[in-house]
């Protein structure tokens, strides 16, 4: 019996040792190799999932190439970060399929001087992609855990032109209104009147409608110069046909943006 004790003790301790070993930070070489591997996956994602489906907007493609999606998914889904599908992030929310993120971004016709409101920060991925293209992103999340996680991760990633708020998104962000574009990434039974008010004349709002793990139709709300509002619903691949190469040409590639220092971000993070 005595001889078995060390073996049993080892068996008991082994999982903890292995777990601790797994947590040891990787060395610089390993980190570089991992970054290169993820960069390759991103490149493949952009080419196979996005460009191949007809999205040619270079600003969007460049942002998607740059933003490290694997840093924004839950740890247990890192290996799947660049798969062609949405992933769960908790609270019944998902990080959208990369193609949907690209589609919504390109649909809004964004440029470097624009200010965008996002309702439903979720993982923060959409905000990060937008932040690569526009001047400022204001993002609101009602679930505190998601809000804090996205804020911390995007700050770590050095995205200083994103302002975060933990609040009910249906009320919008009155102090910073009006916005050139709004993305509503959470389910709603109606388009909140406050958001319509906070959209600039000539602005666009994009709302994905559909189940968390399923095909979503996108509703594009357009407010003309007189303030009249119309919607355009895009059904499945029918929408792909609408994204013509000419559309991409209309949107010049975004130049390198001037980023605000991190202190500004903290001040705006209310």
């Amino acid at each position, binding site marked *: 019996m005595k001889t078995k004790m060390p073996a049993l003790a080892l068996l008991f301790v082994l999982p903890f040792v292995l777990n601790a070993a797994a947590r040891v930070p990787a060395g610089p070489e390993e980190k570089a190799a991992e970054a290169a591997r993820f960069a390759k996956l991103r490149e493949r994602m952009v080419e196979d*999932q996005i460009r191949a*489906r007809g999205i040619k907007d270079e600003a969007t493609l460049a942002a998607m190439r740059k933003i490290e999606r694997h840093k924004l998914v839950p740890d247990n889904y890192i290996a*799947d970060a660049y798969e*062609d*599908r*949405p*992933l*769960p992030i*908790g*609270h*019944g929310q998902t990080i959208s*399929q990369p*193609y*949907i993120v690209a589609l919504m971004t390109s649909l809004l016709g964004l440029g470097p001087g624009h200010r965008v409101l996002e309702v439903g920060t979720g993982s923060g991925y959409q905000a990060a992609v937008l932040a690569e293209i526009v001047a400022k992103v204001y993002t609101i999340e*009602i*679930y*505190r855990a998601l809000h804090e996680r996205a804020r911390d991760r995007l700050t770590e990633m050095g995205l200083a032109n994103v302002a975060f708020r*933990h609040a*009910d998104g*249906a009320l919008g962000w009155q102090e910073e209104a009006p916005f050139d574009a709004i993305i509503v990434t959470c*389910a*709603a*039974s*109606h*388009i*909140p*009147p406050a958001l*319509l*008010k906070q959209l600039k004349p000539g602005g666009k709002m994009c709302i994905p*409608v*559909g*189940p*968390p*793990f*399923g*095909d*979503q*139709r996108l*509703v594009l*709300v357009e407010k003309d110069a007189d303030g*009249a*509002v*119309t*919607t*355009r*619903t*895009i*059904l*499945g*691949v*029918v*929408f*792909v046909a*609408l994204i013509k190469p000419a559309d991409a040409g209309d949107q010049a590639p975004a130049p390198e943006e001037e980023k605000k220092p991190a202190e500004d971000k903290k001040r705006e993070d209310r």
Partner: protein
Amino acid sequence: MSDGARGVAFSVFVISFATLALELLLLRILSLRWSHHFASLVIGIGLLGFGASGTLLALFQRGLHERPRRWLAAFALAFSWAAALAPLALAYIPFEPYRLPIDLQLLPLATELSLAVLPFLAAGLFTGLALAAAGSAAPRIYAASLFGAGAGPVAAVLLLHAAKPEMLTVIFAFAGVVAALPFLVRSGAAGVAALLGGALGPLAAASIFFGAGWDVPLSEYKALSRVHGFPDAKTIHHASGPLGRVDVVQSRAEHYAAGLSMNYQGDLPEQRGLFLDGGSLGAITRLEGDPAELSYIRALLFALPYELRRGGRALAIGAGGGLELLIARAHGLSIDGIEMNPEIVDLMMGPLAEFSGRIYTRPGVRVFRTEARGHLARQTDRYDLIVLPALDAFGTLAVTGAAPGETPLYTVEAVGECLAHLEPEGVLSLGRWLRNVPREEIRLIATAIRALELLGTDAPGDHLLIARDWESLLVLVKRAPWHGKEIAAARSFLKERSFDFVHAPGVSSAETNRFHILTPDLYREATEALLGPDRAAYLAAYPFDIAPVTDDRPFFFHTLKRGSLEVLRERSAGQLVPIDDWAERLLIASALVAAALALVFFAGPFALAAASARRRGETQAWAGAGARPVRIALFFAALGAGYIAIEIALLGRFIQFLAQPIGAAAGVLAILLGGSGAGSYLAGRLALGRKALRAVLAGIVVYWVLAALLLPRILEPLRAWPDAWRWVAVAAFLLPLAMLMGCPFPLALARLAGEARSVVPLAWGANGFASVISASLAQYVAIERGYTAVTLAAAGIYLCAAAAAAGITQQAPAPARGAPYVGGTERATSP
């Protein structure tokens, strides 16, 4: 019947009673946690435990029959533990069906399914052994089983009014201890210890459920879970009943205004979220003064019919949180509301009365606590407006998987019935949500057109006014053609609020698709095609089944046909096909899994064991040699499959007829199973002759074929009868059939009495597996072909049973005599 057999009959009754109650309660728990589709799948597979029990009884028959009473006690106590464990596992093991498209979650799924099998396996072992060891008392044991099975669901439904399903599972789990009493009561301290040991399972389950506040954690993708994540959200009212769990949630972030105009500039009033089984039912709006002061309700698309029928008399099907009542009163209409869920009525008239401005009891409002079809059938009132809103809240179908099964409100007959209750200038308003790939909403238009045609309308297009926004479709059906003035009023209403016409007399395509642009405008195209000469070709070519549904096939939300899923996959541009879109295929998956498991756990072991027994020359041990065991298995499989198919067809017909979904299902089951129990008992008492079996089977086939042909016509004129008389009519129709259906199993056992110990496991297993496979297939046939097809299929299966019956008797049967439940080393009176 000896004392021993009487005690066993009592225990069999108790176990069957608790098992059927448990089945219903587990369905309730899983419907609450996930969705009805997955609940049916998991419980359907759990029921395979009955089939597997036959295999185990056969494999261990020698050991079991040496001490049958001891084993019966053990199985009863095992039932207690399993019935306590299964609800816990199904409630708390982390498994998320909505993530299945991206994550199979095999381990939790397999664990849930395995644990769901256990109570049914224990119950199957208990009843199967009781039957096998019963000798000449088998018909009475079988009768006790049927009586228990009939009473269990009724008790569960009644008790659901008073307690949560989780609590009731614990109570029913104690049934195993009660069932073990007759076998252990004279066993002294060991018996008491065994009983206490059996009771520990339910007690442990009770303590765990108690610790969790008697609450089942809902899927995080259900609307209620998401709302609970809001910072200030709290459940302020909570009620549970047979129709589901109702929650009312307070949160500043809770807003519900589906169909709201984008031109509306005001704020939304304070609202409370209303949820049924965790899915959204919309909201309850705070009302402090006159409903007309709530400006937002006049900005809703669904206010159009009220605007067109100002000052009239309306009927709203589904009073729910009171939105339709508010819109009606804001437009000066008096309104009758129908609300089937008593919990919602109690909430609206009790704790929420003040908040909702007493909308259920305001002057000009009457609310009936009843089901709509039955209500319409019983009354002769005429209305200026009947409103059938989208009863599921916007997004419910897509997000929570709450797609209902049978939907008697959206059939051609239901729409016709509504039209028949309108004044000559009356309007029927039908609402639905737009889907990513249009399906039900187009079926709704097709249904309205068909109903108008059946009323003798020459030009249905003149009676239709259809409008939409980006999320909602409104179909207004008028008995008389629409007048120019009404169209002008509608035009003004829609334009002011930026809503679009889809179709109306005199409205050209230039007036459609202006504010909410679809490319192409599928709704306009579909309406024109359905009103034109090429309707059949359009319906055939459409990638989904959008043809109108009838009372014979009232599955409005089931729209898949061959190729539909491929279309969804193509159109979704590489995204996943949401689980709700293919959930109806789960029935086929369930049947295939059951068939595969039947092969693995039933046919395989029996064939191998029989071959082995033959090699050893023990032909008696495995129900004889040659083709006979196959015939026996086929015969009892046909009995199981046929019985379930008839049960499903009857439930479909009578739930509509009795117009009380849950109560009708429990009541019809009670009459059917209780009647079968009586038939089984009488078959044993009367000692029917050898020819009786085939005569009974022929009787069932004839009765049932006549029923298929005549039942809908017989029931239709009786629908206006009062509740009690309709129940009498159902009982009068069902009892003779039920009694006949209870006879074949015990009659066949009687013919095989000399070899009961070897035959009963075979019969029991075949019957159990076939029942589960048939349950899924019969539902699938009902969805695809209708209840008449299920009825005819059931008659065909009984015909097969009659054919197989000829070859199951041995040349020289040796009937069992003497005291039952006496094993080689065991006395009947002292286990």
